[in-house]
C-alpha cells in the first residue's frame, strides 16, 4: 500500500483524461480516477460526509454521501451508490437529492443521533436534515464516537497501526490491542487531531504527553525549550528515513522564525529586494 498509488486513484492523477458528468443538472469535469464526491464538490453541490478525508482511502462507513446515479441509456433506472467510492464516469448523471436518497440519509442520521444523542456535530447535521430528536431508543450511555474510523485509518496510513476498531456490531469500538497501552503508539496525536468529534482524550503537560493510557517523554525545542514532539515520534519518523533527526530539534514556531530570518538575510543580500519596507 503505497501513498502514491492511493493518491493516484483518489485524486485522479493517473492518465489525466478529463471526464464530463452532471451533478444535479450542473455539468462538471474531473480527472479520470476521481470519485463522484469530488465531482459533486467541484460542481458546488454539497453532500454530507462523516467518514471521508481527502488524505485517506475511502471507507464507506457513514453512508451519508448516498446519491442516485444513472445514464441516459439506462431508461430511467437509477443505482443508489455512495459518492465517496463510486468512480466518476463519462456521461454519468448524478442526483444527490432524490426522495430515496433524502429519506435513507434521514434514517441513517436518525440512527446516528440515537447512538450519539449529545454530540454537537451529529445534532447539527441531524437538525439540518429535519431531525430534532431521534425516533429510536437513545443510547443510555451517550458517546461522541461515531465510529468513522478516521483515527484508526490515519494511524494505519502512517504505518503505525497502534489502534484499531475491535468487536462486532453494536459492540464495535476503537481501542488499542487488548485495551492496554498500545505498544506501537508514538503519541503523534494524528488520531486525536483527525477526530471530527474530538472524542479521543489526551494530555500534554510539562515534559510529557499521555494518550491511550500511554505516557510519552517529550522532546524540547533546542531554541525555545518548548516540549513540541514526543521522543517516540521523532524516533519513528527519523528511523523511517527521509526525515533527518535534526528536523525535530526546533519546534514549528521556531522553525518558522528561523525561516523568516533566512528570507530576511537573503533579501538583504539581493539587490532590488526589500522586506517589510
Amino acid at each position, binding site marked *: 500500500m503505497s501513498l502514491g498509488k492511493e493518491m493516484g486513484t483518489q485524486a485522479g492523477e493517473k492518465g489525466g483524461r478529463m471526464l464530463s458528468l452532471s451533478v444535479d443538472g450542473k455539468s462538471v469535469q474531473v480527472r479520470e480516477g476521481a470519485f463522484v464526491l469530488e465531482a459533486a464538490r467541484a460542481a458546488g453541490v454539497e453532500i454530507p460526509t462523516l467518514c471521508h478525508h481527502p488524505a485517506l482511502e475511502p471507507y464507506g462507513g457513514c453512508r451519508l454521501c448516498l446519491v442516485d446515479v444513472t445514464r441516459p441509456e439506462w431508461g430511467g433506472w437509477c443505482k443508489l451508490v455512495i459518492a465517496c*467510492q463510486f468512480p466518476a464516469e463519462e456521461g454519468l448523471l448524478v442526483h444527490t437529492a432524490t426522495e430515496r436518497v433524502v429519506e435513507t440519509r434521514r434514517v441513517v442520521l436518525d440512527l446516528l443521533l440515537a447512538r450519539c444523542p449529545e454530540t454537537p456535530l451529529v445534532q447539527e447535521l441531524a437538525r439540518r436534515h429535519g431531525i430534532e430528536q431521534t425516533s429510536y431508543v437513545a443510547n443510555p450511555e451517550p458517546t461522541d464516537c461515531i465510529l468513522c474510523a478516521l483515527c484508526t485509518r490515519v494511524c494505519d496510513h502512517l504505518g503505525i497501526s497502534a489502534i484499531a476498531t475491535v468487536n462486532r456490531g453494536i459492540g464495535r469500538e476503537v481501542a488499542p490491542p487488548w485495551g492496554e497501552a498500545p505498544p506501537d503508539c508514538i503519541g503523534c496525536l494524528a488520531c486525536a487531531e483527525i477526530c471530527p468529534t474530538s472524542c479521543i482524550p489526551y494530555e500534554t503537560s510539562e515534559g510529557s504527553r499521555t494518550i491511550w493510557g500511554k505516557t510519552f517523554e517529550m522532546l524540547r525545542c533546542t531554541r525555545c525549550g518548548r516540549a513540541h514532539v514526543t521522543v517516540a515520534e521523532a524516533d519513528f519518523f527519523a528511523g523511517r528515513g527521509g526525515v533527518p533527526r535534526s528536523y525535530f530539534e526546533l519546534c514549528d514556531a521556531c522553525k518558522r522564525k528561523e525561516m523568516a530570518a533566512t528570507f530576511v538575510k537573503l533579501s538583504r543580500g539581493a539587490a532590488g529586494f526589500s522586506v517589510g519596507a
Partner: protein
Amino acid sequence: MRIESEQAFQRFVAQARKRSSARSREVLVCCGTGCLANGSAKVAEALAAELAKRGSDVPVATFTKRTGCHGFCERGPLVVLQPQGVLYTRVKPRDAAEIVEKSVIGGEVISRLVYKDPASGQRIPGYAEVPFYQRQTRVAMRNIGRIDPADIEDAVAHGAYAGLAKALFTMTPEQVIEEIEVAGLRGRGGAGFPTARKWRSCRAATGDRKFVVCNGDEGDPGAFKDRSIMEGDPHSVIEGMVIGAYAVGAHEGFIYVRDEYPLAVVHLTLALEQARARGLLGANILGTGFDFDIRISRGGGAFVCGESSALMRSLEGKVGEPRAKYVHATERGLFDLPTVLNNVETWADVGAILARGGAWFASMGTAKSKGTKAFSLVGKVKNTGLIELPMGTTLREIIYGIGGGVLGDRPFKAVQTGGPSGGCVPESLLDLPVDYEKLTEAGSMMGSGGMIVMDDRTCMVEVARYFLQFLTEESCGKCIPCREGLHQMLAIFEDLVAGRGKSGDIEKIERLARGMQLGSLCELGKSAPNPVLSTLRYFRSEYEAHIERRACPAGICRELTAYEIVETACNGCHACFKVCPVGAITGKIKELHVIHHDTCISCGACFDVCPTQAIRTFPKKELAERGVA
C-alpha cells in the same frame, strides 16, 4: 506418480476402475458430520472388526468404506450394502455382527434396520427406492456417499477429474467458458450471478497474476450443503477450481473454509496432497504446462466473512470487513488483483458440466435457473437432511415429497429459505417452483440453500426476532444502517414479543427496513430486513395481534401466552407433570392435571409432550380477567 499425458491419465482411470470393480462388495458407512455425531465411526470400526473376525466366511472382495454425508441425517448412522443397494438406518455398533452374519454372508435383509416410510408405513430396503433419494437428482453431490473422500483413486474411478482432463486436453480456455455459459450455471452462493460472465470478465482483466477463490464459509444457521460437499467429495471442488483457473488464466487458488468445519479441512488437505502427487494440481498439470495450486485458509468464525469482499480482506490477513464492490473483484479482488470467487457448490458443478456437457446441465431446471441445486432441509420436517434437486421443483415436492411432511403431521405454516437474509414463504405459495427469481419475487431468496420448515407452533414475529438477533450479533459494525439499524430493529422486536408493542411500530419497522436495504454497505445489511419484511408481508395479522391485542396467536411468545389443560381431553398420563421444569403442574396419575399460573413460565414443554393434545394456549392477559395474578 505424476500423470503427464492424456494416455497416462486414461491409464490411471482404467487402473482405478479396475481396482474399484475388484471390490465388488462394499459396506458403505456414512461418516459425514451428522452420522459421526450419532456414532458412525464406532459403527464403521465394529463392522470392519466383525468382517476381519469372520475372515474366510466373508465373501471375497468385501470392503468397508467410510464415505461422506449421504444426506439422510435424520436416520443416521447410515450403512449401505453394495452391490445389493440395501440401506440400513440408525445402525448401532452392536448391529455389526448381525449385519455381517445375515446380510454380508447370508445375503438377507434385516427388516428392523430398513427404512420405514412414514407415509405408507412400508419398509423399503432399496437405497434407490427410498422416496428421500428417489426424487433427487445429484450433480454437485454426484459422488458423495459413493466414494471414500480420502482416496483419490476411488474418486477417479467414479469420474472425478474427467471434466478437467477434457478441458485441458481438448478445449481452449474460451471454449471452457462457453461450455459454462451453455450450461447456464449461476452462482450457488445465493446471488445467482452468471458464472460464465464472471469468468469472462476475469479472463479479460489485465495482469498476469490472478486468483481463484472458493467460498467455503457457510455460516447460515441450518445450512450444511457446502460442508458436506467439502467433506464428502473434496475432489469435485478441486477439479472445478483447476478448470476455472485454466479458463481465467489464474495460477493461485484459495479455499476459505470456516474453522468450525474441521473434517472438511482434513479431507480437503488430504485431497490436495493426493491431487498434487498425481499431477492434477501444482506445476505442469497433466503435462499440459498449466500451473495452478491451491492453499487452504481457515476462517475465524465471523458470519460476515462469507460475504465475498470481507472474505478477501480476511484472506489478505486483514480484518474481515466488506468494502464497496463498484469495481468488480474480477478486476480488483484479492490483493487488488483480478479474482474469481465462487461458492463450493458452484465449483463442484463445474467438473460435471465439463464432463457431460453444458447442454445436459441446461436440460434441467427452469428458463433462467438451470441445473440442480442443493438444499439443507431442516426444522419441523420428518426427513431432515441434505438434498439436491432440479431447479424449479416445488416447495411442496421438497417438503412433502422428499421431506415426508411436517413433523407430527402438524399443519404447515411457513418455510424459511436462504438463511438469515432470506424470508419466510407461506403455505399459499407451497406450489412455488424453486428458482432464483421465484424465491426473490416471494420476498425470500435462494441464499445458502437452507430450508427451515415451520409448523403452526411457530410465531412469525418471534422468528423474525430470532434472525434479527443472529444478524445483530454477526453485523461487523462498519456501517451505520446495519450496525445501529439492527440494534434498534431488535429492540423493537424485543418489545413486540414481550407485549410492549405500540401502535406505529409496524410503520417504524417498515421505514427502518427500507433505510437498511438502501443504505447498508454490504449484502448482510441490505438483506437483513428480509425476514422482517417477508413475515410482515404474509403474517401481518400476527404482528397486529401482538401490538393491538397483546396476544401471540401461535401461542409461543412467553410473555403473552398462558397454558391450561382441557378437562375433557386429559387422560391423566402424567407426562406433563414429569416434564414441567418448574413444578407448575399438579395431578395424580389417571386423574385430571392442573397448570398453576402463578408458577408456570410458559415454556410450552407440557404442550409438546401431551399425547392427547389436552393442553391449550390462551392470551396471558385473560388471566387478569379470571382474577389470577
